[in-house]
């Protein structure tokens, strides 16, 4: 392994090696996460609903997702006649690619970040906005009314929920005094470090709600609302086009929970086990909460969703932010 890395470093240089190893690792992470999450979600759903979930393939049905992927690969990709071909084909890629960039910014442990950027948090959210483009491109180019309705809903929902998401994250940034994700983790660990969940419980609540809405997950899955809009923005997608949207959804879930773990749960901080393991455990704990919400609540109506964001979450997160700033100033003056 080390010899291989040395050879790579010889030919590509240090930066090139990081890039290559990082992307291979991230590709692995994305695939394994999606495979695991689909299985995990089905199992949790089964548990909630008093049934077994997938059991047929592999022990406890663990190979079910793999076979689903094979099935999706084997399906014919139908491109309907009325679609805008170029945009239609590009849309899943645009929706998915930012995920790779976002994953490369996450701190999996104290020093385990693929690209350590000074304003990492800001960059992660910025890439999140790009993925929305992909969803809307898919919806618009489908030339289908259900898809269009889903796309319009997706855009207004994502814009509305980006604000509370950012504002709740900003409260943490004020506490940590940095936008660098690594430094935010560092502020929570060490001698008298305290996880920000203790200082910012309100922000965590807002963050989780907004993150669920950002990833279009139930009870905020309004852009795809299958009982109203058939499949929403990906109504016209079949086979791999659909699979890539699907993959993107599960990857974004991992990302928002990863940021949540970084901001509020101290990233890779924890006793005994190594940092990355703690990080993954925390991420999957948050993912478990998201999955549980999906199988418990009915879907909100569109206007109710907007009211929740504009009339409740945004004012609350603003108050939280101002209160945090005020307290920090008092502490600073006092000391």
């Amino acid at each position, binding site marked *: 392994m080390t010899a291989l890395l040395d050879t790579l470093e010889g030919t590509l240089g240090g930066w090139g090696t990081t890039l290559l190893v990082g992307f291979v690792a991230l590709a692995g992470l994305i695939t394994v996460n999606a495979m695991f999450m689909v299985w995990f979600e089905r199992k949790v759903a089964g548990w909630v609903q*008093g049934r077994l979930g997938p059991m047929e393939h592999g022990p406890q049905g663990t190979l079910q997702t793999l076979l689903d992927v094979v099935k999706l690969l084997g399906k014919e990709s139908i491109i309907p006649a009325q679609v805008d071909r170029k945009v239609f084909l590009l849309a899943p890629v645009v929706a998915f690619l930012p995920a790779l960039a976002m994953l490369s910014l996450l701190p999996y442990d104290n020093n385990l970040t693929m690209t350590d950027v000074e304003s990492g948090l800001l960059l992660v959210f910025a890439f999140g906005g790009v993925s929305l483009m992909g969803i809307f491109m898919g919806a618009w180019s489908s030339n289908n009314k259900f898809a269009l309705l889903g796309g319009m809903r997706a855009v207004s929902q994502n814009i509305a929920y980006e604000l509370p998401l950012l504002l709740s994250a900003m409260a943490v940034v004020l506490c940590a005094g940095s936008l660098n994700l690594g430094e935010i983790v560092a502020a929570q660990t060490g001698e008298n470090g305290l996880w920000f969940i203790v200082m910012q419980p309100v922000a965590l609540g807002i963050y989780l709600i907004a993150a669920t809405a950002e990833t279009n997950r139930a009870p905020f899955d309004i852009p795809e609302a299958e009982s109203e809009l*058939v499949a929403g923005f990906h109504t016209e997608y079949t086979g791999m086009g659909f699979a890539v949207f699907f993959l993107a959804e599960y990857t974004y879930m991992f990302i928002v929970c990863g940021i949540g773990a970084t901001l509020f749960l101290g990233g890779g901080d924890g006793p005994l086990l190594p940092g990355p393991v703690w990080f993954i455990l925390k991420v999957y704990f948050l993912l478990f909460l998201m999955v549980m919400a999906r199988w418990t609540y009915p879907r909100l*109506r569109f206007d109710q969703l907007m009211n929740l964001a504009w009339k409740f979450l945004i004012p609350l997160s603003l108050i939280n932010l101002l209160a945090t700033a005020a307290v920090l100033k008092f502490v600073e003056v006092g000391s």
Partner: protein
Amino acid sequence: MSTESATLKAYAAHPRTPEYAPLRFGTLTPALEQAPEDGTYYLNMGPQHPSMHGVLRLLLRLDGEKVVECEPVIGYSHRAHEKMAERGIFAQFLPNPSRMDYLGGMIYNVGYCQAVERAFSIEVPERAVVLRTLCCELNRISSHLLWFGTFLLDLGAFTPFLLAFQDREKILDILDSASGSRLTYCYANFGGLALDVPEDFAERTRQYIKEQRAAFHTYHELVTGNVIFRQRCEGVGIITQDTILSYGMTGPNARASGIAYDVRKAEPYGFYPEVEFDVPTRDEGDCLARYFVRFEEMEQSLRIVEQCLDRLPEGPVGPKKPLVRVKPKPGEYYHCVESPRGQFGMFIVADKDPEPWRIKARTPSFSNLSAMAEMLEGTMVADTIAILGSIDIVMPEIDR
């Protein structure tokens, strides 16, 4: 004069709404060809759509997400049941009624038998009467449970659907043990029942009643108090008493708007005069009221089932030899029963022949759906699904 017959009179006396009736059905379809100029657009929901309860097609004219106009288009599962009745003797129509409303099959089956028995004065032994009532009420619970599941599924919650189906499965098993079929029953025949119930029937049913009461508690914990559920239902899809009377809506939908009309009380049949039960009503007339009315009805049905079990007499359940050829008396006969969706009536015209001259079924969902066009105007797309779900339609029963 009792209050029930006053309600019936109110139905009869209420003027129809001519401004709605001729306007709908068929007016929107040609307009689909050209786009409207006021910025609205048409959305064609169904017949293939996840929440159109089978094969309903809704043509919606939308302004953004708001419904401007709506037209339900029906007829995709028309199977000419009424014509089938004319082509055979009365007994040959026995399997058909339960296929009209596949969720209230037992009630339809029993309703048809009772209509024929009443028309041609056929005696039914007491045990059969009680068992019919019992099975009908079990069937009503299973229908309401399925409604509960699909309504929540329409609202986007998946778990209640599966919970409700697990409990419904128990009813289907019990009815299966008695009648031999799970969905489209042909249990009752003229003069009684095809078979007596198995020995462990009473015991299994009592066990089920106990489990179901516990399950209702789970449903309320999971759904009824949920904020999102309340917001989606409260004040959504309000049906006024006027609308109910003018369209002839019956059943839980009417009772949720404060019209206490229940065929079981208004025109008692079978064992219902002998048992104690209440007719739950609400005054709000919104989706939440319909939800509560159906839940209270399920509890009342459990009460009826318990009383039937307690007072189940011994004896035969039908004539020794199955009564295949009934001797018709020429005339016109009408008999109605309370199906899970409202008043189900059988209008029989008989002459001297062993075949019915004409059978007309009065099915409740047809009237209930007719009011949809009026109710949907000004709501959101998401509400459309919620209202449609709360009305509880069964398409094959509308199309027949």
